[in-house]
């Protein structure tokens, strides 16, 4: 799960405070595993260092939670690149993919494209596996089939999500 | 009674009701199916109702026929207040026979013919509606001179045998006992001429032939849409219905069709009944009010139709196993068995042989039943044999082009339905062929070449007495376009009173010019003054110098004629009118002119068939004078009119039955096409030519029909042969009629195919791939 890119995406939608960022993240992507504050600030400082975010303003008071962060041009490019790059098809990708879809919706990018890109990648991978399977021995076949069935499940999820994009957009964008 | 599990009658009622509900709630498909069944059963019921009306029709017609008949002259009937003088003045108009009577009251309260309110006074003309209509037409005006003016009123239904009756009464004051006879009342008591036994036999078989296929058609109709019905029943089994319940539910469904059919049939009957007056078959027409079904027969129909329908649907389920998960057809129980199928026709033939054995069908009750049963058994036998034959043949066919292969395979798997439908054809065609053979044979006795010049008819003008001027008539006739007098004679009779014999011997004599006499006998070397004698029966000529008397010696003064020494014996020639004349042939110079007054004039007029109206002009010329008899016309051949009608009626009936069969074939075909729409679309996607599937449809219809026809033509010929033997006629096949029946069959096949094709084309479109 790429927390950094997720933060960038959230910040692209609008500048936020650190705790605000954590709340937004937890609400949408971290239902079962909320972020630690330490994780949040470590990530933010890494982003700051790489010039992907900047401090937009500091409110009077104490503590790091008073800083408001905004995304930089470089940050936007980074998000775009991340969204356009399909994930390597592997099990348990949902979280990342879901985050990508939501962020694409939040930042006004094409979520369908994200999904299509991903499914193309999945299928490419499945094709390789199928090729291996048809030319391999029984052991190969069984191993490939295991992966194929899992990938197929992911692909079904991609299909389903694509079909429900409008619904999702209505929910995530205020 | 256990709770929630009704038994006995209630169980039955519930199952029946379920069936009724299922049939009516089957959606659009169910509606179409029920409608089709209703229409099919309805057609059958309609026909049956017509058949059930026949007794009443016959009774009513007979009653009126008696009422309008004019009694024979009664010896010693004195003039009285009721008596009427009647002269029959029938005429013909083209093919139409017009029955006419001139009437004259002798007293103040004359008898009145049926259908009139009073006896027409002098010059008053009462006509039947059909005749009135004929007079209105432009051709009909040619008739007016014979009837002496415009009609003054119409004869009502009581005075007509049928709506197509041509009949008139004309009041006249020129009647006396010389030219007419006296009656005290109109109408007779005794029934008319009974139908010949021969005709009874024919009618009996005709009915068998027409009704059997109708019954079969009902059977076929009861199975329309059977497949979807079976699927619904399977769904019911899933809900816990047992087999017996399933059967009752099916019965309930069948009953709906049957009842709807009864209603439809009644409607068809009532509608068809209204058009009955427009139908005239061989001069017979029927009043709407006569078409009333016999109550007993009607009750029989109302009971039998639902029973048959339910029975058939159960029969159809015999080999079905309806299980909760679907419908299974019991694995083919080996080949169809032949022996019991052969049993029926063999038994039938045996029965026929029994009665045909001595070639004497006398029309006894037992014989009638025996013959009818025999014919019936053979015909049903043909119907039961057909599925076996079809099965056996189709399973032996291999290969052939693609459409042929498709059709054959289809028949191998589902030939039952086709065979069932075609069984109707087998019965109808076999019966028709048998009857046609019988008619053909019988008609052989009646239809004769008359010897009249081809392209012409011969009109015969005969006067009642010698008190006419033939020369004037001949001149007038020859002026008519298309008519030409061919021969003219005086027809006399000479009597030879032999001593010691109670009755004198009569010699008919024809007096005419040599050229005219030549038409009757070979009178070569004839000159005026010659006398000839001819007798095809070998009767000897009166001896020379014998004295004969012209006219009945009891009545005439006794104008005498002495047989001359040079009376020449000559060979008779066949003449269309006088046949093989036997008697004296005299040139005018051989008789004293006064003798002619004892005879009457006979003119033979050749009328060209291109000028049929010429005959009417001739009739107008002579008939109104009252001195000439109604003109008879002899065409190229003479045929017995009753058979003509029956033959035509039979052909119409067979066509009707084949149409019914075609109808069931068509419905079967359309059902099948609908069921296979997906397959058709796929085949079309494959680039299958329409032609290929079109031909396969044609073959699929044509093969069963062809087998049905071959089988039935054979059966029909055998039965026909048996019938001919029975009435002592030589075996002869009427090829023309065989061809006709086969032609009708081919027509049905073509029609079914042609109607199926557009549906096929439509279903072959790609949309069908999407269905389901």
């Amino acid at each position: 799960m790429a927390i950094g890119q997720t933060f960038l995406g959230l910040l692209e939608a609008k500048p936020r405070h650190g705790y605000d960022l954590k709340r937004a993240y937890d609400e949408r992507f971290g239902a079962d595993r909320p972020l630690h504050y330490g994780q949040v600030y470590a990530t933010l400082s890494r982003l700051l260092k790489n010039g992907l975010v900047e401090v937009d303003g500091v409110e009077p008071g104490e503590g790091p939670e008073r800083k408001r962060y905004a995304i930089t041009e470089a940050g936007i490019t980074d998000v775009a690149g991340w969204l356009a790059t399909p994930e390597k098809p592997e099990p348990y990708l949902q979280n990342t993919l879901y985050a990508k879809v939501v962020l694409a919706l939040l930042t006004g990018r094409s979520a369908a494209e994200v999904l299509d890109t991903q499914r193309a990648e999945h299928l490419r991978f499945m094709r390789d596996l199928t090729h291996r399977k048809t030319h391999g021995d029984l052991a190969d076949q069984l191993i490939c089939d295991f992966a194929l069935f899992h990938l197929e499940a992911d692909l079904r999820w991609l299909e389903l999500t694509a079909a429900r994009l409008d619904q999702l957009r209505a929910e995530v964008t205020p | 009674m256990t709770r929630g599990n009704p038994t006995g009658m209630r169980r039955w009622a519930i199952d029946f009701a379920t069936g009724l509900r299922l049939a009516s709630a089957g959606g659009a498909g169910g509606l179409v199916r029920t409608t089709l069944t209703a229409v099919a059963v309805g057609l059958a019921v309609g026909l049956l109702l017509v058949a059930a009306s026949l007794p009443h029709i016959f009774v009513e017609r007979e009653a009126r026929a008696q009422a309008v008949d004019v009694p024979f002259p009664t010896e010693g009937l004195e003039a009285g207040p009721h008596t009427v003088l009647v002269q029959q003045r029938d005429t013909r108009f083209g093919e139409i026979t017009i029955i006419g009577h001139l009437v004259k009251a002798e007293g103040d309260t004359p008898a009145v013919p049926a259908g009139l309110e009073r006896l027409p006074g002098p010059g008053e003309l009462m006509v039947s509606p059909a005749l009135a209509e004929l007079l209105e037409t432009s051709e009909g005006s040619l008739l007016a001179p014979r009837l002496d003016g415009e009609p003054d009123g119409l004869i009502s239904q009581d005075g007509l045998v049928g709506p197509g009756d041509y009949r008139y009464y004309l009041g006249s004051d020129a009647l006396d006992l010389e030219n007419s006879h006296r009656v005290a009342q109109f109408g007779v008591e005794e029934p008319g001429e009974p139908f010949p036994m021969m005709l009874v036999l024919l009618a009996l078989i005709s009915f068998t032939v027409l009704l059997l296929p109708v019954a079969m058609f009902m059977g076929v109709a009861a199975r329309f849409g059977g497949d979807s019905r079976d699927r619904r029943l399977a769904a019911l089994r899933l809900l816990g219905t047992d087999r017996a319940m399933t059967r009752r539910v099916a019965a309930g469904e069948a009953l709906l069709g049957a009842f709807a059919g009864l209603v439809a049939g009644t409607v068809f009957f009532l509608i068809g009944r209204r058009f009955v007056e427009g139908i005239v078959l061989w001069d017979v027409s029927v009043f709407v009010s006569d078409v009333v079904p016999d109550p007993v027969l009607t009750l029989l129909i109302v009971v039998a139709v639902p029973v048959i329908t339910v029975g058939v649907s159960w029969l159809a389920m015999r080999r079905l196993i309806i299980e909760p998960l679907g419908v299974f057809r019991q694995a083919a129980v080996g080949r169809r068995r032949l022996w019991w199928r052969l049993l029926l026709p063999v038994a039938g033939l045996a029965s026929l042989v029994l009665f045909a054995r001595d070639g004497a069908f006398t029309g006894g009750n037992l014989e009638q039943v025996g013959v009818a049963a025999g014919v019936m058994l053979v015909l049903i036998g043909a119907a039961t044999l057909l599925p076996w034959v079809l099965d056996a043949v189709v399973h032996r066919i291999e290969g052939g082009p693609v459409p042929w292969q498709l059709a054959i395979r289809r028949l191998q798997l589902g030939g039952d339905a086709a065979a069932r439908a075609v069984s109707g054809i087998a019965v109808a065609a076999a019966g028709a062929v048998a009857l046609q053979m019988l008619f053909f044979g019988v008609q052989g006795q009646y239809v004769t070449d008359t010897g009249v010049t081809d392209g012409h008819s011969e009109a015969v003008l005969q006067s009642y007495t010698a008190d006419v001027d033939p020369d004037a008539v001949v001149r007038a006739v020859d002026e008519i376009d298309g008519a030409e007098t061919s021969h003219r004679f005086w027809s006399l009779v000479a009597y030879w009173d032999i001593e010691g014999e109670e009755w004198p011997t009569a010699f008919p004599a024809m007096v005419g010019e040599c050229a005219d006499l030549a038409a009757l006998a070979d009178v070569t070397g004839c000159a005026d003054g010659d006398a000839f004698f001819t007798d095809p029966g070998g009767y000897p000529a009166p001896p020379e110098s014998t004295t004969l008397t012209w006219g009945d010696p009891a009545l005439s003064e006794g104008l005498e004629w002495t047989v001359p020494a040079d009376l020449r014996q000559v060979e008779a020639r066949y003449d269309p009118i006088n046949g093989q004349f036997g008697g004296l042939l005299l040139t005018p110079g051989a008789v004293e002119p006064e003798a002619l007054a004892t005879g009457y004039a006979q003119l033979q007029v050749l009328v060209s068939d291109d000028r049929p109206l010429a005959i009417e002009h001739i009739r107008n010329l002579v008939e109104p004078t009252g001195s000439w008899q109604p003109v008879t016309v002899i065409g190229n051949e003479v045929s017995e009119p009753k058979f003509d009608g029956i033959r035509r009626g039979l052909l119409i009936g067979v066509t009707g039955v084949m149409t019914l069969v075609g109808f069931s074939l068509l419905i079967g075909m359309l059902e099948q096409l609908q069921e296979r729409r997906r397959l058709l679309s796929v085949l079309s996607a494959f680039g299958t030519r329409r032609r290929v599937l079109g031909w396969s449809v044609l073959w699929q219809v044509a093969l069963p029909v062809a087998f049905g026809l071959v089988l039935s033509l054979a059966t029909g010929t055998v039965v026909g042969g048996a019938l001919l033997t029975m009435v002592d006629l030589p075996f002869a096949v009427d090829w023309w009629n065989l061809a006709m029946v086969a032609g009708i069959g081919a027509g049905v096949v073509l029609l079914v195919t042609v109607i199926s094709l557009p549906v096929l084309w439509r279903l072959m479109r790609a949309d069908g791939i999407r269905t389901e």
Partner: protein
Amino acid sequence: MTTPLLTATALHKRYGETDALAGADLTVTAGEVLAIMGPSGSGKSTLLHCIAGIVTPDSGRIEYDGVDMTAMSDSRRSALRRTEFGFVFQFGQLVPELTCLENVALPLRMNGVARKAAEQRAADWLAKLEVSDVARKRPGQVSGGQGQRVAVARALVAEPRLLFADEPTGALDSLNGEAVMRHLTSAAAELGTAVVLVTHEARVAAYSHREIVVRDGRTRTVVAAAS
């Protein structure tokens, strides 16, 4: 070899109120296996029917072998389907009265091959698809998987240049489905036949070389960021 065998551009097809196709493009290259994917009702089958010449699009151009198919007469297109194309559908495509062998021989016979020769070649194909044992049975007496293999044999027996398959494994379990796909693709590869495969099953689509996605009647060609 990347010569396009069939090119479709800007296809539109309306059914009453529904736009079944609203601008679909596609190219089939000789010998390739192309998968058409997309949600139900998106227009996959319509697209397939259009490019196979079964349905005429309202507008757009379909070029097969350099000839515009939309301008062809019905009989020309039928002839094309008979001689150059093969078809496999989900179910119900075999003539129920004919034996499996006769079903496979049918396309050859419709192209005028004599019965003996046609049935010999049909038998070879049944053997290739490992269903020789059902040759004498009728479609109603064989399993779904066997029936589909018979259908594949029938589609390929006339050695078409292009095979159209619409959900060929739709009615089969995964094992049978895979077997059918394996046979289909390997036999097609052997003949050099291009395959257009409509499916919504990823594992079936994985037998393709390339896929296009149809959404709301529009095609989207997605190039996977091949690494």
